Protein backbone atom coordinates (compact mmCIF):
# COMPACT_ATOMS: atom_id res chain seq x y z
CA UNK A 1 0.00 0.00 0.00
CA UNK A 2 3.00 2.27 -0.35
CA UNK A 3 4.18 2.48 3.24
CA UNK A 4 7.80 2.26 4.29
CA UNK A 5 7.62 -0.50 6.88
CA UNK A 6 9.89 -0.53 9.92
CA UNK A 7 9.82 -3.59 12.16
CA UNK A 8 11.13 -3.51 15.72
CA UNK A 9 14.34 -5.52 16.35
CA UNK A 10 14.19 -8.94 18.04
CA UNK A 11 13.48 -8.62 21.76
CA UNK A 12 16.58 -7.71 23.74
CA UNK A 13 17.45 -6.58 27.24
CA UNK A 14 16.89 -2.90 26.54
CA UNK A 15 13.46 -3.50 24.98
CA UNK A 16 12.24 -5.63 27.86
CA UNK A 17 13.57 -3.11 30.37
CA UNK A 18 11.65 -0.29 28.67
CA UNK A 19 8.52 -2.43 28.90
CA UNK A 20 9.08 -3.36 32.54
CA UNK A 21 9.66 0.23 33.57
CA UNK A 22 6.56 1.60 31.89
CA UNK A 23 3.95 -1.13 31.91
CA UNK A 24 1.45 -1.86 34.71
CA UNK A 25 3.06 -4.58 36.85
CA UNK A 26 0.22 -7.11 36.67
CA UNK A 27 0.47 -7.52 32.89
CA UNK A 28 1.99 -10.68 31.41
CA UNK A 29 5.52 -10.89 30.00
CA UNK A 30 4.30 -10.66 26.40
CA UNK A 31 2.39 -7.40 27.02
CA UNK A 32 5.38 -5.89 28.80
CA UNK A 33 7.66 -6.79 25.92
CA UNK A 34 5.09 -5.34 23.50
CA UNK A 35 5.27 -2.03 25.36
CA UNK A 36 9.06 -2.17 25.04
CA UNK A 37 8.89 -2.88 21.31
CA UNK A 38 6.56 0.09 20.76
CA UNK A 39 8.98 2.30 22.66
CA UNK A 40 11.85 0.99 20.51
CA UNK A 41 9.94 2.00 17.39
CA UNK A 42 8.93 5.41 18.69
CA UNK A 43 12.59 6.07 19.59
CA UNK A 44 13.37 5.53 15.92
CA UNK A 45 10.95 8.33 15.05
CA UNK A 46 8.06 6.24 13.75
CA UNK A 47 4.94 8.36 13.19
CA UNK A 48 2.34 5.65 12.62
CA UNK A 49 2.28 2.48 14.70
CA UNK A 50 0.26 -0.54 13.54
CA UNK A 51 -1.26 -2.28 16.57
CA UNK A 52 -4.48 -4.00 15.55
CA UNK A 53 -7.13 -4.74 18.15
CA UNK A 54 -7.33 -8.48 17.52
CA UNK A 55 -10.63 -9.44 19.11
CA UNK A 56 -10.93 -12.78 17.38
CA UNK A 57 -9.33 -14.81 14.59
CA UNK A 58 -11.86 -17.64 14.41
CA UNK A 59 -15.67 -17.68 14.56
CA UNK A 60 -17.06 -17.91 18.10
CA UNK A 61 -13.64 -17.56 19.72
CA UNK A 62 -11.49 -14.88 21.30
CA UNK A 63 -7.77 -14.26 21.28
CA UNK A 64 -7.39 -13.07 24.88
CA UNK A 65 -8.57 -10.17 27.02
CA UNK A 66 -5.17 -8.47 26.80
CA UNK A 67 -5.31 -8.25 23.00
CA UNK A 68 -8.62 -6.43 23.27
CA UNK A 69 -7.20 -3.58 25.29
CA UNK A 70 -3.67 -3.52 23.84
CA UNK A 71 -3.89 -0.41 21.58
CA UNK A 72 -5.55 1.61 24.36
CA UNK A 73 -2.95 0.45 26.86
CA UNK A 74 -0.03 1.29 24.54
CA UNK A 75 -1.41 4.78 23.97
CA UNK A 76 -0.67 5.51 27.67
CA UNK A 77 3.02 4.83 27.22
CA UNK A 78 3.80 6.44 23.87
CA UNK A 79 4.60 10.09 23.10
CA UNK A 80 1.72 12.01 21.54
CA UNK A 81 3.69 12.34 18.29
CA UNK A 82 3.14 8.63 17.58
CA UNK A 83 -0.27 7.86 16.10
CA UNK A 84 -1.62 4.38 16.66
CA UNK A 85 -3.34 2.65 13.77
CA UNK A 86 -5.67 0.24 15.54
CA UNK A 87 -8.23 -1.43 13.29
CA UNK A 88 -10.55 -3.88 15.02
CA UNK A 89 -10.07 -7.38 13.67
CA UNK A 90 -13.04 -9.46 14.66
CA UNK A 91 -13.90 -12.85 13.19
CA UNK A 92 -16.42 -13.81 15.89
CA UNK A 93 -19.34 -13.63 13.47
CA UNK A 94 -17.54 -14.94 10.36
CA UNK A 95 -14.17 -15.06 8.64
CA UNK A 96 -15.59 -12.72 5.97
CA UNK A 97 -15.96 -10.02 8.62
CA UNK A 98 -12.25 -10.35 9.31
CA UNK A 99 -11.42 -9.78 5.63
CA UNK A 100 -13.73 -6.76 5.59
CA UNK A 101 -11.99 -5.17 8.54
CA UNK A 102 -8.58 -5.55 6.89
CA UNK A 103 -9.86 -3.91 3.71
CA UNK A 104 -11.50 -1.08 5.67
CA UNK A 105 -8.21 -0.41 7.42
CA UNK A 106 -6.43 0.21 4.11
CA UNK A 107 -8.98 2.47 2.47
CA UNK A 108 -7.87 5.77 4.08
CA UNK A 109 -4.37 5.19 2.68
CA UNK A 110 -4.82 3.69 -0.80
CA UNK A 111 -7.37 2.97 -3.51
CA UNK A 112 -9.72 0.01 -3.16
CA UNK A 113 -7.91 -1.89 -5.91
CA UNK A 114 -4.53 -1.42 -4.29
CA UNK A 115 -5.88 -2.48 -0.89
CA UNK A 116 -7.44 -5.63 -2.32
CA UNK A 117 -4.19 -6.50 -4.10
CA UNK A 118 -2.27 -5.92 -0.87
CA UNK A 119 -4.73 -8.11 1.02
CA UNK A 120 -4.37 -10.96 -1.49
CA UNK A 121 -0.58 -10.71 -1.37
CA UNK A 122 -0.70 -10.78 2.44
CA UNK A 123 -2.95 -13.84 2.46
CA UNK A 124 -0.62 -15.61 0.08
CA UNK A 125 2.44 -14.78 2.18
CA UNK A 126 0.66 -16.01 5.32
CA UNK A 127 -0.38 -19.24 3.62
CA UNK A 128 3.12 -19.89 2.34
CA UNK A 129 4.46 -19.37 5.85
CA UNK A 130 1.90 -21.69 7.43
CA UNK A 131 2.51 -24.38 4.81
CA UNK A 132 6.25 -24.16 5.29
CA UNK A 133 5.84 -24.45 9.07
CA UNK A 134 3.64 -27.51 8.66
CA UNK A 135 6.10 -29.08 6.23
CA UNK A 136 9.15 -28.46 8.43
CA UNK A 137 10.68 -31.73 9.42
CA UNK A 138 12.15 -31.34 12.89
CA UNK A 139 15.77 -32.33 13.45
CA UNK A 140 15.99 -35.99 14.20
CA UNK A 141 16.61 -36.58 17.86
CA UNK A 142 16.52 -39.28 20.48
CA UNK A 143 13.56 -37.77 22.31
CA UNK A 144 10.38 -36.55 20.68
CA UNK A 145 8.97 -33.60 22.57
CA UNK A 146 5.82 -31.59 21.91
CA UNK A 147 6.34 -27.93 22.75
CA UNK A 148 3.09 -26.08 23.48
CA UNK A 149 2.39 -22.51 24.45
CA UNK A 150 1.67 -19.14 22.87
CA UNK A 151 3.74 -18.59 19.71
CA UNK A 152 4.65 -15.03 20.72
CA UNK A 153 6.49 -16.60 23.62
CA UNK A 154 8.06 -19.83 22.40
CA UNK A 155 9.13 -18.35 19.05
CA UNK A 156 10.81 -15.42 20.80
CA UNK A 157 14.31 -16.57 21.71
CA UNK A 158 14.85 -13.85 24.31
CA UNK A 159 11.52 -14.21 26.14
CA UNK A 160 11.67 -18.01 26.16
CA UNK A 161 15.35 -18.01 27.21
CA UNK A 162 16.49 -19.84 24.04
CA UNK A 163 14.21 -22.75 24.77
CA UNK A 164 14.42 -24.11 21.22
CA UNK A 165 18.16 -24.29 21.01
CA UNK A 166 18.59 -25.68 24.52
CA UNK A 167 16.18 -28.50 23.76
CA UNK A 168 17.91 -29.24 20.48
CA UNK A 169 21.26 -29.39 22.24
CA UNK A 170 19.75 -31.94 24.59
CA UNK A 171 18.88 -34.09 21.59
CA UNK A 172 15.18 -33.38 21.35
CA UNK A 173 13.09 -33.65 18.21
CA UNK A 174 10.67 -30.75 18.61
CA UNK A 175 7.07 -30.70 17.47
CA UNK A 176 4.87 -27.63 17.85
CA UNK A 177 1.24 -26.73 17.29
CA UNK A 178 2.31 -24.80 14.15
CA UNK A 179 2.90 -28.14 12.42
CA UNK A 180 -0.77 -29.08 12.77
CA UNK A 181 -3.09 -27.70 10.09
CA UNK A 182 -5.88 -25.51 11.48
CA UNK A 183 -8.65 -27.86 10.33
CA UNK A 184 -7.08 -30.82 12.11
CA UNK A 185 -6.43 -28.85 15.30
CA UNK A 186 -10.00 -27.55 15.30
CA UNK A 187 -11.50 -31.01 14.90
CA UNK A 188 -9.30 -32.53 17.59
CA UNK A 189 -9.93 -29.59 19.93
CA UNK A 190 -13.52 -30.82 20.15
CA UNK A 191 -12.28 -33.74 22.24
CA UNK A 192 -13.11 -31.59 25.26
CA UNK A 193 -16.65 -31.64 26.67
CA UNK A 194 -16.69 -27.88 26.39
CA UNK A 195 -14.36 -26.47 23.73
CA UNK A 196 -12.02 -23.70 24.87
CA UNK A 197 -13.01 -20.28 23.54
CA UNK A 198 -9.45 -18.90 23.28
CA UNK A 199 -8.01 -19.71 19.84
CA UNK A 200 -4.42 -20.20 20.95
CA UNK A 201 -5.13 -22.64 23.77
CA UNK A 202 -7.79 -24.42 21.72
CA UNK A 203 -5.03 -25.04 19.14
CA UNK A 204 -2.72 -26.32 21.88
CA UNK A 205 -5.30 -28.85 23.00
CA UNK A 206 -5.87 -29.94 19.39
CA UNK A 207 -2.13 -30.30 18.79
CA UNK A 208 -1.81 -32.38 21.97
CA UNK A 209 -4.44 -34.81 20.69
CA UNK A 210 -2.67 -34.95 17.34
CA UNK A 211 0.75 -35.78 18.77
CA UNK A 212 0.06 -37.47 22.09
CA UNK A 213 0.53 -41.04 20.81
CA UNK A 214 3.78 -40.17 19.08
CA UNK A 215 5.79 -38.14 21.59
CA UNK A 216 7.82 -39.02 24.66
CA UNK A 217 7.02 -35.84 26.57
CA UNK A 218 5.11 -32.58 26.51
CA UNK A 219 6.37 -29.15 27.56
CA UNK A 220 3.81 -26.41 28.08
CA UNK A 221 5.15 -22.87 28.30
CA UNK A 222 2.98 -20.08 29.71
CA UNK A 223 3.56 -16.50 30.79
CA UNK A 224 2.87 -15.88 34.47
CA UNK A 225 -0.68 -14.69 35.06
CA UNK A 226 -2.07 -15.85 31.71
CA UNK A 227 -5.77 -16.59 32.10
CA UNK A 228 -6.23 -18.92 29.18
CA UNK A 229 -3.08 -20.89 29.98
CA UNK A 230 -4.03 -21.40 33.62
CA UNK A 231 -6.94 -23.54 32.41
CA UNK A 232 -5.23 -25.03 29.37
CA UNK A 233 -2.24 -26.26 31.37
CA UNK A 234 -4.60 -27.96 33.82
CA UNK A 235 -6.41 -29.67 30.94
CA UNK A 236 -3.16 -30.66 29.23
CA UNK A 237 -1.76 -32.07 32.48
CA UNK A 238 -4.92 -34.10 33.01
CA UNK A 239 -4.81 -35.55 29.48
CA UNK A 240 -1.10 -36.38 29.83
CA UNK A 241 -1.78 -38.18 33.10
CA UNK A 242 -4.50 -40.22 31.40
CA UNK A 243 -2.17 -41.21 28.57
CA UNK A 244 0.83 -41.64 30.89
CA UNK A 245 2.92 -39.10 28.99
CA UNK A 246 5.41 -37.00 30.97
CA UNK A 247 4.65 -33.28 31.07
CA UNK A 248 6.64 -30.23 32.15
CA UNK A 249 4.91 -26.96 32.99
CA UNK A 250 7.15 -23.94 32.46
CA UNK A 251 5.87 -20.59 33.66
CA UNK A 252 8.02 -17.68 32.58
CA UNK A 253 8.16 -14.05 33.59
CA UNK A 254 10.80 -11.32 33.69
CA UNK A 255 12.49 -12.95 36.69
CA UNK A 256 13.04 -16.29 34.96
CA UNK A 257 16.74 -17.13 34.68
CA UNK A 258 18.16 -19.04 31.77
CA UNK A 259 20.22 -21.29 34.04
CA UNK A 260 17.11 -22.35 35.93
CA UNK A 261 15.38 -23.20 32.66
CA UNK A 262 18.37 -25.25 31.49
CA UNK A 263 18.41 -27.25 34.73
CA UNK A 264 14.74 -28.04 34.46
CA UNK A 265 15.03 -29.03 30.81
CA UNK A 266 17.99 -31.30 31.56
CA UNK A 267 16.14 -32.96 34.41
CA UNK A 268 13.08 -33.45 32.22
CA UNK A 269 15.10 -34.96 29.37
CA UNK A 270 16.95 -37.26 31.79
CA UNK A 271 13.59 -38.44 33.04
CA UNK A 272 12.36 -39.10 29.51
CA UNK A 273 15.54 -41.04 28.63
CA UNK A 274 15.14 -43.17 31.72
CA UNK A 275 11.47 -43.79 31.03
CA UNK A 276 12.30 -44.78 27.47
CA UNK A 277 14.98 -47.24 28.41
CA UNK A 278 12.53 -48.77 30.87
Amino acid at each position, binding site marked *: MGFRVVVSPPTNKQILEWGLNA*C*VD*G*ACLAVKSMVGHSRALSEQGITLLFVP*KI*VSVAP*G*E*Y*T*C*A*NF*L*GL*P*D*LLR*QYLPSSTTIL*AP*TLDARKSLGALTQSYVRLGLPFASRGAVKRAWRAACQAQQTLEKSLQATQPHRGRLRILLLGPRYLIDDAYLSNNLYSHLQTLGAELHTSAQVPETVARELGKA*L*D*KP*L*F*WSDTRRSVGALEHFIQRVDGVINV*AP*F*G*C*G*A*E*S*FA*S*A*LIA*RRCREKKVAMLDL*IVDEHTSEVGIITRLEAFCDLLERKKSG
Partner: protein
Amino acid sequence: MRVTFPHLGNAYIAIEALLQGLGHEPVTPPLSTKRTIEWGSRYSPEDICLPFKTILGNMLEGIELGADSVYMLGGWGPCRLGYYAEIQRIILLDLGKQVEFVTLEVPRGNWGLARERLRSIFGSARIRHLFRGCQLAWAKLSVLEEVENLSLQARPREKERGSVSRFLEGQLQKIRLAQSVKTLRELKEETEAGLQDLMDRVSSHAVLRVGIVGEIYTVVEPFVNLRLEERLGSLGVEAVRTISLKEWIEDHVFKNALGLYNQNSLLRSAAGYLHSFVGGHGLESVARSAELSGCLDGIIHIYPLACMPEIMAHGILPQVSADKQIPILSLVVDEHAGETGFQTRLEAFVDLLQRRIYQCQDGRKYI
Protein backbone atom coordinates in the same frame (compact mmCIF):
# COMPACT_ATOMS: atom_id res chain seq x y z
CA MET B 1 -32.89 -32.05 44.44
CA ARG B 2 -30.60 -30.64 47.07
CA VAL B 3 -28.83 -27.85 45.24
CA THR B 4 -25.73 -25.95 46.30
CA PHE B 5 -24.37 -22.84 44.61
CA PRO B 6 -21.46 -20.41 45.08
CA HIS B 7 -21.72 -17.24 47.15
CA LEU B 8 -21.74 -13.76 45.69
CA GLY B 9 -22.17 -11.24 48.46
CA ASN B 10 -25.66 -11.55 49.93
CA ALA B 11 -27.18 -12.89 46.72
CA TYR B 12 -27.74 -16.25 48.44
CA ILE B 13 -30.85 -14.78 50.03
CA ALA B 14 -32.47 -14.30 46.62
CA ILE B 15 -31.06 -17.53 45.16
CA GLU B 16 -32.60 -19.56 47.99
CA ALA B 17 -36.05 -18.14 47.17
CA LEU B 18 -35.56 -18.87 43.47
CA LEU B 19 -34.49 -22.48 44.07
CA GLN B 20 -37.43 -23.07 46.38
CA GLY B 21 -39.73 -21.77 43.64
CA LEU B 22 -38.13 -24.26 41.25
CA GLY B 23 -39.03 -27.04 43.66
CA HIS B 24 -35.48 -27.71 44.84
CA GLU B 25 -34.05 -27.69 48.32
CA PRO B 26 -31.30 -25.04 48.53
CA VAL B 27 -28.17 -26.11 50.40
CA THR B 28 -26.49 -22.78 51.13
CA PRO B 29 -22.80 -23.23 51.89
CA PRO B 30 -21.55 -21.36 54.97
CA LEU B 31 -20.41 -17.79 54.19
CA SER B 32 -16.87 -17.86 52.80
CA THR B 33 -14.13 -18.18 55.41
CA LYS B 34 -10.44 -18.93 55.47
CA ARG B 35 -11.30 -22.61 55.34
CA THR B 36 -13.28 -22.11 52.11
CA ILE B 37 -10.37 -20.46 50.39
CA GLU B 38 -7.82 -22.98 51.67
CA TRP B 39 -9.95 -25.90 50.60
CA GLY B 40 -10.63 -24.33 47.22
CA SER B 41 -6.98 -23.47 46.55
CA ARG B 42 -5.85 -26.97 47.41
CA TYR B 43 -7.61 -28.45 44.37
CA SER B 44 -7.43 -25.48 41.96
CA PRO B 45 -4.81 -24.92 39.25
CA GLU B 46 -2.28 -22.77 41.09
CA ASP B 47 -2.28 -19.67 38.88
CA ILE B 48 -6.03 -19.37 38.54
CA CYS B 49 -7.71 -16.20 39.83
CA LEU B 50 -9.08 -15.88 43.35
CA PRO B 51 -12.85 -16.11 42.62
CA PHE B 52 -12.32 -19.57 41.12
CA LYS B 53 -10.69 -20.84 44.29
CA THR B 54 -13.30 -19.37 46.62
CA ILE B 55 -16.17 -20.63 44.47
CA LEU B 56 -14.69 -24.14 44.37
CA GLY B 57 -14.39 -23.95 48.17
CA ASN B 58 -18.08 -22.98 48.39
CA MET B 59 -19.02 -25.98 46.26
CA LEU B 60 -16.98 -28.38 48.38
CA GLU B 61 -18.54 -27.01 51.56
CA GLY B 62 -22.01 -27.26 50.02
CA ILE B 63 -21.41 -30.88 49.05
CA GLU B 64 -20.15 -31.55 52.58
CA LEU B 65 -23.56 -30.37 53.82
CA GLY B 66 -25.26 -32.99 51.68
CA ALA B 67 -25.97 -31.29 48.35
CA ASP B 68 -26.46 -33.63 45.40
CA SER B 69 -26.20 -31.02 42.66
CA VAL B 70 -24.18 -27.90 41.98
CA TYR B 71 -25.40 -24.88 40.01
CA MET B 72 -22.86 -22.57 38.44
CA LEU B 73 -22.80 -19.83 35.80
CA GLY B 74 -21.03 -20.45 32.49
CA GLY B 75 -20.23 -18.32 29.46
CA TRP B 76 -18.18 -17.97 26.29
CA GLY B 77 -15.32 -15.59 27.08
CA PRO B 78 -13.12 -13.76 26.83
CA CYS B 79 -13.01 -13.60 30.66
CA ARG B 80 -11.98 -16.78 32.48
CA LEU B 81 -15.34 -16.93 34.26
CA GLY B 82 -16.83 -18.57 31.17
CA TYR B 83 -14.67 -21.64 31.65
CA TYR B 84 -14.80 -21.80 35.47
CA ALA B 85 -17.70 -24.21 35.56
CA GLU B 86 -16.15 -26.75 33.20
CA ILE B 87 -12.89 -26.96 35.15
CA GLN B 88 -14.74 -27.07 38.46
CA ARG B 89 -16.90 -29.89 37.12
CA ILE B 90 -13.77 -31.83 36.15
CA ILE B 91 -12.12 -31.19 39.52
CA LEU B 92 -15.19 -32.41 41.43
CA LEU B 93 -15.36 -35.43 39.11
CA ASP B 94 -11.70 -36.29 39.72
CA LEU B 95 -12.25 -35.91 43.47
CA GLY B 96 -14.93 -38.56 43.17
CA LYS B 97 -17.82 -36.33 44.27
CA GLN B 98 -21.09 -37.85 43.14
CA VAL B 99 -22.95 -34.69 42.17
CA GLU B 100 -24.90 -33.46 39.20
CA PHE B 101 -23.15 -30.37 37.89
CA VAL B 102 -25.43 -27.94 36.09
CA THR B 103 -23.82 -25.09 34.13
CA LEU B 104 -26.19 -22.22 33.41
CA GLU B 105 -25.23 -20.81 30.02
CA VAL B 106 -26.54 -20.28 26.50
CA PRO B 107 -25.85 -23.66 24.88
CA ARG B 108 -23.67 -24.00 21.77
CA GLY B 109 -24.34 -27.27 20.01
CA ASN B 110 -24.79 -30.32 22.24
CA TRP B 111 -28.56 -29.79 22.41
CA GLY B 112 -29.15 -33.14 24.07
CA LEU B 113 -27.18 -32.06 27.12
CA ALA B 114 -28.94 -28.67 27.13
CA ARG B 115 -32.34 -30.38 27.15
CA GLU B 116 -31.26 -32.67 29.95
CA ARG B 117 -30.07 -29.68 31.99
CA LEU B 118 -33.35 -27.82 31.45
CA ARG B 119 -35.24 -30.88 32.57
CA SER B 120 -33.23 -31.21 35.76
CA ILE B 121 -33.64 -27.50 36.53
CA PHE B 122 -37.34 -27.18 35.79
CA GLY B 123 -38.37 -30.83 36.14
CA SER B 124 -39.83 -30.57 39.61
CA ALA B 125 -41.29 -27.07 39.26
CA ARG B 126 -44.97 -26.23 39.40
CA ILE B 127 -45.93 -23.21 37.33
CA ARG B 128 -47.62 -21.38 40.19
CA HIS B 129 -44.75 -21.95 42.60
CA LEU B 130 -42.21 -21.08 39.95
CA PHE B 131 -43.87 -17.76 39.24
CA ARG B 132 -44.08 -16.90 42.93
CA GLY B 133 -40.49 -18.01 43.48
CA CYS B 134 -39.17 -15.80 40.70
CA GLN B 135 -41.18 -12.85 41.93
CA LEU B 136 -40.03 -13.30 45.51
CA ALA B 137 -36.38 -13.80 44.50
CA TRP B 138 -36.39 -10.66 42.40
CA ALA B 139 -38.07 -8.65 45.16
CA LYS B 140 -35.53 -9.93 47.68
CA LEU B 141 -32.64 -8.98 45.43
CA SER B 142 -34.04 -5.45 44.97
CA VAL B 143 -34.70 -4.89 48.67
CA LEU B 144 -31.33 -6.38 49.55
CA GLU B 145 -29.45 -3.96 47.34
CA GLU B 146 -31.46 -0.95 48.47
CA VAL B 147 -30.89 -1.80 52.11
CA GLU B 148 -27.17 -2.36 51.53
CA ASN B 149 -26.86 0.95 49.73
CA LEU B 150 -28.63 2.74 52.58
CA SER B 151 -26.26 1.18 55.07
CA LEU B 152 -23.31 2.47 53.05
CA GLN B 153 -24.62 5.98 53.60
CA ALA B 154 -25.41 5.38 57.25
CA ARG B 155 -22.15 3.71 58.28
CA PRO B 156 -19.82 6.74 58.18
CA ARG B 157 -22.44 8.78 60.05
CA GLU B 158 -23.29 6.23 62.76
CA LYS B 159 -23.36 7.33 66.41
CA GLU B 160 -21.79 4.16 67.71
CA ARG B 161 -19.12 2.31 65.69
CA GLY B 162 -20.34 -1.03 64.40
CA SER B 163 -24.02 -0.45 65.13
CA VAL B 164 -25.03 -0.21 61.45
CA SER B 165 -23.30 -3.48 60.52
CA ARG B 166 -24.95 -5.26 63.45
CA PHE B 167 -28.37 -3.86 62.58
CA LEU B 168 -27.95 -4.70 58.89
CA GLU B 169 -27.00 -8.28 59.73
CA GLY B 170 -30.28 -8.74 61.63
CA GLN B 171 -32.36 -7.16 58.88
CA LEU B 172 -30.73 -9.37 56.22
CA GLN B 173 -31.75 -12.47 58.15
CA LYS B 174 -35.32 -11.14 58.32
CA ILE B 175 -35.28 -10.60 54.56
CA ARG B 176 -33.99 -14.13 54.17
CA LEU B 177 -36.98 -15.51 56.06
CA ALA B 178 -39.61 -13.24 54.45
CA GLN B 179 -42.18 -15.16 52.46
CA SER B 180 -44.10 -12.41 50.66
CA VAL B 181 -43.42 -9.29 48.68
CA LYS B 182 -45.55 -7.33 51.15
CA THR B 183 -43.37 -8.34 54.10
CA LEU B 184 -40.32 -7.33 52.12
CA ARG B 185 -41.75 -3.88 51.50
CA GLU B 186 -42.42 -3.47 55.21
CA LEU B 187 -38.93 -4.70 56.04
CA LYS B 188 -37.44 -2.13 53.74
CA GLU B 189 -39.29 0.69 55.46
CA GLU B 190 -38.37 -0.68 58.87
CA THR B 191 -34.70 -0.80 57.90
CA GLU B 192 -34.80 2.71 56.52
CA ALA B 193 -36.25 4.05 59.77
CA GLY B 194 -33.86 1.97 61.86
CA LEU B 195 -30.83 3.30 60.01
CA GLN B 196 -32.05 6.88 60.43
CA ASP B 197 -32.11 6.33 64.22
CA LEU B 198 -28.55 5.03 64.23
CA MET B 199 -27.25 8.07 62.39
CA ASP B 200 -25.72 11.06 64.05
CA ARG B 201 -27.41 14.03 62.48
CA VAL B 202 -25.92 16.66 64.77
CA SER B 203 -22.32 16.49 63.65
CA SER B 204 -21.76 18.51 60.51
CA HIS B 205 -18.36 17.34 59.35
CA ALA B 206 -18.22 16.53 55.67
CA VAL B 207 -18.21 12.85 54.76
CA LEU B 208 -15.89 11.81 51.96
CA ARG B 209 -17.41 9.78 49.13
CA VAL B 210 -15.30 7.07 47.51
CA GLY B 211 -16.46 5.02 44.54
CA ILE B 212 -15.63 1.34 44.26
CA VAL B 213 -14.97 -0.04 40.78
CA GLY B 214 -13.39 -3.28 39.61
CA GLU B 215 -14.06 -6.93 39.06
CA ILE B 216 -17.61 -7.81 40.15
CA TYR B 217 -16.79 -10.72 42.47
CA THR B 218 -14.15 -8.85 44.45
CA VAL B 219 -16.37 -5.76 44.63
CA VAL B 220 -19.46 -7.60 45.83
CA GLU B 221 -18.06 -10.40 48.02
CA PRO B 222 -17.09 -8.95 51.43
CA PHE B 223 -14.89 -11.87 52.46
CA VAL B 224 -12.71 -11.55 49.38
CA ASN B 225 -12.37 -7.75 49.51
CA LEU B 226 -11.57 -7.92 53.25
CA ARG B 227 -14.82 -6.08 54.09
CA LEU B 228 -13.73 -3.04 52.12
CA GLU B 229 -17.06 -1.20 52.46
CA GLU B 230 -17.14 -1.65 56.23
CA ARG B 231 -13.52 -0.58 56.59
CA LEU B 232 -14.20 2.59 54.62
CA GLY B 233 -17.32 3.20 56.69
CA SER B 234 -15.42 3.03 59.96
CA LEU B 235 -12.83 5.43 58.54
CA GLY B 236 -15.71 7.85 58.11
CA VAL B 237 -15.97 7.43 54.35
CA GLU B 238 -19.11 6.72 52.38
CA ALA B 239 -18.47 3.92 49.89
CA VAL B 240 -20.38 4.32 46.63
CA ARG B 241 -21.11 1.15 44.71
CA THR B 242 -20.86 1.33 40.96
CA ILE B 243 -21.81 -2.29 40.43
CA SER B 244 -25.30 -3.55 41.10
CA LEU B 245 -26.07 -7.25 40.96
CA LYS B 246 -29.62 -6.51 39.95
CA GLU B 247 -28.48 -4.38 37.03
CA TRP B 248 -25.91 -6.98 36.07
CA ILE B 249 -28.56 -9.69 35.89
CA GLU B 250 -30.92 -7.41 33.96
CA ASP B 251 -28.19 -6.54 31.44
CA HIS B 252 -26.34 -9.80 31.05
CA VAL B 253 -29.11 -12.33 31.51
CA PHE B 254 -32.37 -10.79 30.29
CA LYS B 255 -31.35 -8.06 27.86
CA ASN B 256 -28.45 -10.09 26.48
CA ALA B 257 -30.68 -13.08 25.80
CA LEU B 258 -33.10 -10.82 23.90
CA GLY B 259 -30.25 -9.09 22.08
CA LEU B 260 -31.15 -5.73 23.63
CA TYR B 261 -27.99 -5.22 25.62
CA ASN B 262 -25.39 -2.84 24.28
CA GLN B 263 -22.44 -1.04 25.78
CA ASN B 264 -22.84 2.24 23.93
CA SER B 265 -23.27 4.37 27.04
CA LEU B 266 -20.23 2.75 28.67
CA LEU B 267 -18.20 3.26 25.50
CA ARG B 268 -19.24 6.92 25.44
CA SER B 269 -18.11 7.41 29.03
CA ALA B 270 -14.79 5.66 28.43
CA ALA B 271 -14.13 7.46 25.13
CA GLY B 272 -10.57 8.67 24.87
CA TYR B 273 -9.35 5.95 27.23
CA LEU B 274 -10.72 2.57 26.23
CA HIS B 275 -12.52 2.00 22.95
CA SER B 276 -13.93 -1.50 23.28
CA PHE B 277 -14.91 -4.04 25.87
CA VAL B 278 -12.05 -6.12 27.26
CA GLY B 279 -14.08 -8.83 28.96
CA GLY B 280 -15.28 -8.95 32.56
CA HIS B 281 -15.76 -5.51 34.09
CA GLY B 282 -12.69 -3.83 32.56
CA LEU B 283 -14.69 -1.40 30.45
CA GLU B 284 -17.08 -0.65 33.33
CA SER B 285 -14.14 0.17 35.62
CA VAL B 286 -12.80 2.78 33.20
CA ALA B 287 -16.21 4.13 32.16
CA ARG B 288 -17.56 4.52 35.70
CA SER B 289 -14.35 6.13 36.93
CA ALA B 290 -14.48 8.72 34.16
CA GLU B 291 -18.22 9.25 34.56
CA LEU B 292 -18.40 9.59 38.35
CA SER B 293 -15.17 11.49 38.89
CA GLY B 294 -17.11 14.75 39.21
CA CYS B 295 -19.21 13.68 42.17
CA LEU B 296 -16.69 11.59 44.12
CA ASP B 297 -13.66 12.44 46.26
CA GLY B 298 -11.74 9.34 45.25
CA ILE B 299 -12.02 5.95 43.59
CA ILE B 300 -10.87 2.52 44.70
CA HIS B 301 -10.26 -0.03 41.99
CA ILE B 302 -10.10 -3.60 43.24
CA TYR B 303 -9.45 -6.85 41.39
CA PRO B 304 -8.06 -10.35 41.90
CA LEU B 305 -4.41 -11.03 41.03
CA ALA B 306 -3.89 -11.83 37.31
CA CYS B 307 -7.41 -10.73 36.28
CA MET B 308 -6.72 -9.85 32.64
CA PRO B 309 -9.55 -7.36 31.93
CA GLU B 310 -8.83 -5.39 35.10
CA ILE B 311 -5.09 -5.30 34.41
CA MET B 312 -5.93 -3.48 31.19
CA ALA B 313 -8.13 -1.09 33.20
CA HIS B 314 -5.35 -0.67 35.77
CA GLY B 315 -2.99 0.38 32.97
CA ILE B 316 -5.43 2.99 31.70
CA LEU B 317 -6.85 4.39 34.97
CA PRO B 318 -3.78 6.55 35.81
CA GLN B 319 -4.61 8.60 32.71
CA VAL B 320 -8.23 9.01 33.86
CA SER B 321 -6.94 10.02 37.28
CA ALA B 322 -4.64 12.68 35.81
CA ASP B 323 -7.20 14.10 33.38
CA LYS B 324 -10.14 14.19 35.78
CA GLN B 325 -8.08 15.25 38.82
CA ILE B 326 -9.30 12.41 41.00
CA PRO B 327 -7.16 10.07 43.12
CA ILE B 328 -7.53 6.40 42.16
CA LEU B 329 -6.16 3.56 44.29
CA SER B 330 -5.82 0.17 42.61
CA LEU B 331 -5.85 -2.78 45.01
CA VAL B 332 -5.01 -6.35 44.03
CA VAL B 333 -6.22 -9.19 46.24
CA ASP B 334 -5.46 -12.90 46.35
CA GLU B 335 -5.48 -15.62 48.99
CA HIS B 336 -2.37 -14.13 50.57
CA ALA B 337 -3.84 -10.64 51.06
CA GLY B 338 -2.95 -9.42 54.55
CA GLU B 339 -5.42 -7.35 56.57
CA THR B 340 -2.90 -5.02 58.13
CA GLY B 341 -1.28 -4.00 54.88
CA PHE B 342 -4.70 -3.50 53.35
CA GLN B 343 -5.88 -1.32 56.25
CA THR B 344 -2.71 0.79 56.12
CA ARG B 345 -3.15 1.49 52.45
CA LEU B 346 -6.79 2.46 52.94
CA GLU B 347 -5.91 4.79 55.81
CA ALA B 348 -3.17 6.44 53.78
CA PHE B 349 -5.55 6.90 50.87
CA VAL B 350 -8.25 8.43 53.07
CA ASP B 351 -5.67 10.77 54.67
CA LEU B 352 -4.70 11.91 51.21
CA LEU B 353 -8.32 12.57 50.26
CA GLN B 354 -8.93 14.56 53.45
CA ARG B 355 -5.86 16.64 52.80
CA ARG B 356 -7.10 17.52 49.35
CA ILE B 357 -10.33 18.81 50.89
CA TYR B 358 -8.50 21.10 53.36
CA GLN B 359 -6.48 22.37 50.47
CA CYS B 360 -9.61 23.39 48.61
CA GLN B 361 -11.28 24.95 51.65
CA ASP B 362 -8.64 27.50 52.59
CA GLY B 363 -7.15 27.83 49.13
CA ARG B 364 -3.64 26.89 50.28
CA LYS B 365 -1.56 24.02 49.04
CA TYR B 366 -0.27 21.50 51.52
CA ILE B 367 1.26 19.08 49.05
